[in-house]
């Protein structure tokens, strides 16, 4: 077994027993990156020099605990002090932040070692990572397919054993959908659970930071570090963070699990439906109570999301104007055309589309018809979940309607691409925690099961996910990249 193949907790144990050093781990993962990165293309920036240097410092100090000495990847949306942060966009191609995001700062403070910054759809807008301004990332399970998005680089890097864990962000499914497509564990916690400070904003009432990992325990370990209130983010919740690893005991006896009929309907690949139903039977065998429920407003979540998210994006992305950072068009003669031409040249198609859509939905005469209407529908969607959670502990569904699609297959039609988010978007609209774990394969491609929890009850999701993992082998399967 090579070091790069191991999970975070396996590496922790070996470091603690002094069998290996951090430098050996870092060298191992860069050996792996050198072998597979030309195929997978998960990273925008690699930080090998600084990673090796930090690893040596940690080895010299000799204190191994938590994630100390263990490499990690960050979606290129997290501002990293002194390390280029592009957000997958030309407009930030040369942006080097002067500050560090709270989530990544917490990992650095625990002596995690940054291996690099990961590819993503531009400004986190997309479901395939093909909207990156730089290049597309490939799915390690089938290099002709997408890894999902927008955190596609994070998912692919973990699946390809390039890093043991990575952070991503999820506004409408951008952690869960790529985790599902790449066969890894992805957690989007409750809105407000993790600070968004220093994370380049897409839709501020929906964005949330989360974790990609090879198994459930690793995910809980990292969430323990990044979760919690941050005075720099007024929307981060001042609610105590439990130790998410403390009840990974495999016990789901009496756990009340609901599955919404609207999430198993037409449009969902039958192999995926079958796989989730099989997983539900497994939960029943383990002693959980499983019942069908209804979330009657489900079909309205996607259209409402595609008004709310672009509206917020159009406001957030107004800051990219060529004045304080990023690309500027120097040809323009006055300041207004400088703004307009800078943005025209700096943003890609999907970003422009969403800015236009959001600007329209917020504009005079259309605000009530579109934006306000969508916020009212958002209330109905949240109420649906609240009603189910008055009687259940967890909701289970497929994460995605299909397995990973081919690169280029859905590039032409924005609406078709938006449909990928149909099972994940409602959870963001309601602000709830959602997680995707591997639960099967369809023609060699991973299937993900989505676990949805009550607000701030990530602990139940981790507990239930761990129980499933202990009784199945899916999380141990690895893609064959044709190299050792």
């Amino acid at each position, binding site marked *: 077994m090579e070091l790069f193949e191991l999970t975070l907790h396996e590496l922790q144990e070996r470091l603690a027993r002094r069998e290996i050093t951090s430098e050996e781990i870092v060298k191992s993962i860069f050996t792996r990156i050198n072998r597979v990165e030309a195929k997978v293309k998960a990273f925008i920036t690699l930080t090998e020099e600084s990673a090796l240097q930090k690893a040596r410092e940690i080895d010299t100090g000799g204190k191994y605990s938590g994630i100390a000495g263990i490499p990690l990847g960050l979606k290129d949306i997290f501002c990293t002090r002194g390390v280029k942060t592009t957000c997958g966009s030309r407009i930030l191609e040369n*942006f*080097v*932040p*002067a*500050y560090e995001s709270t989530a990544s700062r917490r990992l650095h403070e625990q002596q995690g070692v940054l291996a690099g910054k990961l590819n993503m759809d531009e400004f986190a807008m997309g479901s395939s990572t093909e909207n990156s301004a730089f290049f597309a990332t490939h799915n390690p399970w089938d290099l002709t397919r997408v890894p999902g998005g927008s955190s596609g680089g994070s998912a692919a890097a973990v699946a390809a054993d390039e890093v043991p864990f990575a952070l991503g962000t999820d506004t409408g499914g951008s952690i869960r959908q790529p985790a599902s497509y790449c066969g890894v564990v992805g957690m989007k916690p409750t*809105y*407000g659970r993790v600070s968004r400070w220093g994370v380049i904003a897409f839709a501020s*009432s929906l964005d949330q930071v989360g974790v990609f990992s090879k198994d459930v325990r690793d995910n809980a370990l990292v969430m323990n570090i990044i979760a919690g209130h941050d*005075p720099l983010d*007024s*929307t981060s*919740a001042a609610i105590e963070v439990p130790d998410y690893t403390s009840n990974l005991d495999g016990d789901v006896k009496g756990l009340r699990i609901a599955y919404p009929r609207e999430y198993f309907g037409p449009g969902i690949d039958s192999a995926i439906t079958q796989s989730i139903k099989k997983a539900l039977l497994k939960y029943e065998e383990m002693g959980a109570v499983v019942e069908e429920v209804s979330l009657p*407003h489900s*079909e*309205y979540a996607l*259209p*409402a999301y*595609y*008004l709310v998210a672009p509206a917020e994006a159009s406001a957030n992305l*107004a800051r990219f104007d*060529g*004045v*304080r*950072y990023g*690309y*500027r068009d*120097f040809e*323009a*003669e*006055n*300041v207004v055309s*400088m703004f*307009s*031409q800078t*943005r*025209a040249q700096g*943003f890609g198609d999907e970003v*422009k*589309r969403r*800015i*236009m*859509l959001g*600007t*329209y939905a917020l*504009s005079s005469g259309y605000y009530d018809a*579109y934006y*306000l*209407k969508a*916020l*009212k*529908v*958002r*209330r*109905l969607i*949240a109420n649906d979940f609240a009603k189910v959670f008055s009687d259940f502990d967890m909701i289970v569904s497929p994460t995605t309607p299909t397995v990973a699609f081919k690169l280029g297959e859905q590039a032409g039609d*924005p609406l078709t691409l*938006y449909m990928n988010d149909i099972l994940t978007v409602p959870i963001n609209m*309601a*602000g709830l925690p959602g997680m995707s774990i591997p639960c099967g394969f369809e023609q060699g491609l991973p299937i993900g099961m989505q676990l949805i929890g009550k*607000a701030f009850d990530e602990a139940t999701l981790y507990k239930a996910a761990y129980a499933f993992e202990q009784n199945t082998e899916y999380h141990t399967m690895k893609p064959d990249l044709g190299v050792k």
Partner: protein
Amino acid sequence: MALTIKEVEHVALLARLSLSEDEKKRFGEQLSSILNYADNLNSLPTDDIEPLTHILSVNNVFRTDEIKPSMGRDEMLANAPQAENSQYKVPKIM
């Protein structure tokens, strides 16, 4: 509903995006189809529903007004496309 080129131009102006003729046409069509899809929401009666603007029931999060060190001016200006005398420089406004 279908957006006219004039409406597309108006939105592009509000959004400070200069678009090519081709983009105006393409975005016009694509936005129209997305808005048609959004019109599905109209089948849902929502007159008595309070809009959900924020998930957490927090408002007016205050902190004490204390002077703390700020980020360095030079460090922040290092990312500016153009700066002069410790200030951002832009093309003429008037």
